[in-house]
């Protein structure tokens, strides 16, 4: 693996970590908002 290739993969690898957490947050948010819109927040526009 060349140095450039190594650097690119290291950057991609480490930037994947916050991305994973962000995707988790968005996923949980979407699910929670959806559940709430079916129950407590049903009557709200």
């Amino acid at each position: 693996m060349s140095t450039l290739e190594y650097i690119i993969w290291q950057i991609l690898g480490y930037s994947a970590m916050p991305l994973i957490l962000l995707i988790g947050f968005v996923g949980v948010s979407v699910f929670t908002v959806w559940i709430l819109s079916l129950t407590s927040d049903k009557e709200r526009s």
Partner: protein
Amino acid sequence: MKLVSNFWRKLCKPSNAAVGVVIGMGFVGGILFWGAFNTGMEATNSEAFCASCHEPIVNEIKETIHYSNRSGVRAICSDCHVPHNWADKIVRKVQASKEVFAFVMGNISTEEKFYARRKHLALREWQRMKENDSQECRNCHDFDFMDFSEQGQRSVKQHSTALASGEKTCVDCHKGIAHQLPDMSDVPGWQ
């Protein structure tokens, strides 16, 4: 776009639900997400997953001491080829996406193609292990607890000098311990 703005609007407004319910849903959702993520990570660490592309070399380990031995302790692919700590594991998994792409493109789609590329793949893996000081070997084999009186003369000589000083690392000598060696011509130290 409307869906996103609608979602954002809902996210910015207080809910009618109790604070405890909202926090509870976030907490449970977090556990479920993390559980699912780690289950996925573990699934891609399984021997069956590795064998789906690398079957010929996964079978080779069955002839080695890392598969069957007197103590019944065995290593699977990920024990040696995937870092154990979380951050390095994620980096390796992201790098492996390139390998999935290569497989999809058919680089090693047949046994013939696989054996033709074998040396290239082996050299890359040896280099990776050399760069991390054979970390995956050291997850199980601890130099500090090596009993030289139980080792052969040649092992004692190499371990007490080159390995102890850090001049060499495990994989410099221990190539092909779980798989057959490829053509070793022009590999340093193997003339």
